């Protein structure tokens, strides 16, 4: 469980360029939760998640992982980063080793695991992201496609066997199929391993599909926090923050504006279809109802 209490962060504090990125954020993320973190550019999303694993030390406030204050002097922050792993934006730019296997084994080696064990973990992590270690392990990371490189980077954090996985814009720049594959993969990791997920993205259809709770940041503060469906039902407030809502919900809102008595809180295509069919008086075919 991650718990943060009244966290503030100011970049370049004490200089004329000082910028207050986080202004008093408190949040609890229980184990196994799938949390979407959304907000306009500059709202503090990336800064906030970097306090979760001690990459940024907040200028004020407290961050706890499993009840431990991660900035206490006796805490090894390397251990915290093993438990709370962060996949940065465009992580493929950070690949650097000669082979895929060595790149993925870098983290476990840094944890102090013997080389053989580090490689075994790397091979396992590659399998998890759907890359056969026998085929991809010996290759140069720079000879892979964009989607493959992104998965190698993800394998690199999974090889640390974290409890929490933070993904900062994980699908940015991928082609549509690469996006769909990565999201399927993340969903499967959560299902099979019970990983806590924190997803930062501007793509609200991805948030609708992958998360159960949404936290909205604006100007360094939490302005909304609730179940995904409830947050997206507050569409006017989201739009005022320059944020989108999922497309199926946009269609329903458009119909409502034209005077049709539709519910507007559908998140997926199937839910929106059934709601529209209901209002049009065309019942869904048997077995076709949204789950």
């Amino acid at each position, binding site marked *: 469980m991650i718990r943060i209490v009244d966290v503030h962060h100011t970049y370049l504090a004490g200089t004329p360029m000082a910028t207050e990125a986080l202004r008093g954020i408190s949040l609890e993320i229980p184990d196994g939760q799938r949390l979407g973190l959304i907000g*306009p*550019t500059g709202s503090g999303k990336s800064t906030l998640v970097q306090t979760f694993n001690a990459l940024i030390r907040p200028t004020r406030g407290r961050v706890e992982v499993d009840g431990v204050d991660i900035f206490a002097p006796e805490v090894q922050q390397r251990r915290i980063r093993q438990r709370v792993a962060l996949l940065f934006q465009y992580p493929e730019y950070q690949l650097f080793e000669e082979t895929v296997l060595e790149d993925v084994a870098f983290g476990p080696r840094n944890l102090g695991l013997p080389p053989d064990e580090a490689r075994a973990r790397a091979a396992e992590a590659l399998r998890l992201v759907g890359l056969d270690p026998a085929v991809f392990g010996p290759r140069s990371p720079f000879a892979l*496609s*964009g*989607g493959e490189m992104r998965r190698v980077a993800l394998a690199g954090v999974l090889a640390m066997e974290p409890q929490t996985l933070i993904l900062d814009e994980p699908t*940015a*720049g*991928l*082609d*549509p*199929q*690469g*996006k*769909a594959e990565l999201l399927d993969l993340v969903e499967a990791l959560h299902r099979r391993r019970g990983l806590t997920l924190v997803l930062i993205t*501007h793509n609200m*259809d991805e948030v609708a599909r992958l998360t159960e709770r949404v936290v909205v940041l604006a100007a360094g503060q939490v302005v909304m926090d609730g179940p995904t469906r409830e947050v997206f039902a507050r569409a006017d407030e989201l739009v005022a923050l*320059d*944020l*989108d809502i*999922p*497309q*199926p919900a*946009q*269609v329903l809102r*458009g*119909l409502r504006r*034209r*005077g*049709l*008595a539709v519910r507007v809180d559908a998140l*997926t*295509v*199937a839910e*929106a*279809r059934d709601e*529209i*069919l209901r*209002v*049009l*008086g*065309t019942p*869904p*075919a048997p077995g*076709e109802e949204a789950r």
Partner: protein
Amino acid sequence: MVGPNGSGKSTLARCLNALLRPTAGRVVVDGLDTRDPETVWAVRQRVGLVFQNPDNQLVATVVEEDVAFGPENLGLPPAEIRRRVDEALRVVEMLPYRRHAPHLLSGGQKQRVAIAGILAMRPQCIVLDEATAMLDPRGRAEVLATVRRLREAAGIAVVHITHHMEEAVRADRVVVLDGGRIARAGPPREVFADPEALRRLRLVPPPVLELGWALRAAGVALDGPPLTVEELVAALAAAAERAGRAPA
């Protein structure tokens, strides 16, 4: 222009302004054959390329100097350069930033400055190679609005390479590349009419298209087919009226 990674989109884009020359076949720009080395600069003046990463295509330390880079290379007189730079920055709505440092701009602003640098060359065609892929929704909207203005006001042809199908549906014409070949081409309404064909081409439709298809499959007659949220809303409102479900 759409298609999965590796389908040849960027290679084709680079052939359009002689950054690459085809190993076979011809690329002719305004009567100029790119195989002729003498034509290179004339071709690049006519066809400008904007790349994906906003951080590595601006070269100068001040916005207006960056935009002036091309016209200066054309050897134009200073007064003409000044006029072109101001005009280009006005079109992309970046004139107030003309003395700013590019590295302090947002991604969308950087891409608009890159577009201004091409406009200052008075091109016939501008090619955006996934120029919106790294931008946030606001930056994307800024760049897309700029591109629309170029087409409508200045009559410049736009080749927009994108993975965002919701951008592609707004084009006059869509070309789908697959494995280095044109797999489909036509108006968006035709190209995006067939879900199965899109899936075979590994294109993932935006949710609004899927919703339209799902409703048609369930027997709702929709005019169109609708390609955008607004079109689907309008088509459904019409269907509701036909079904006698419209509000009084």
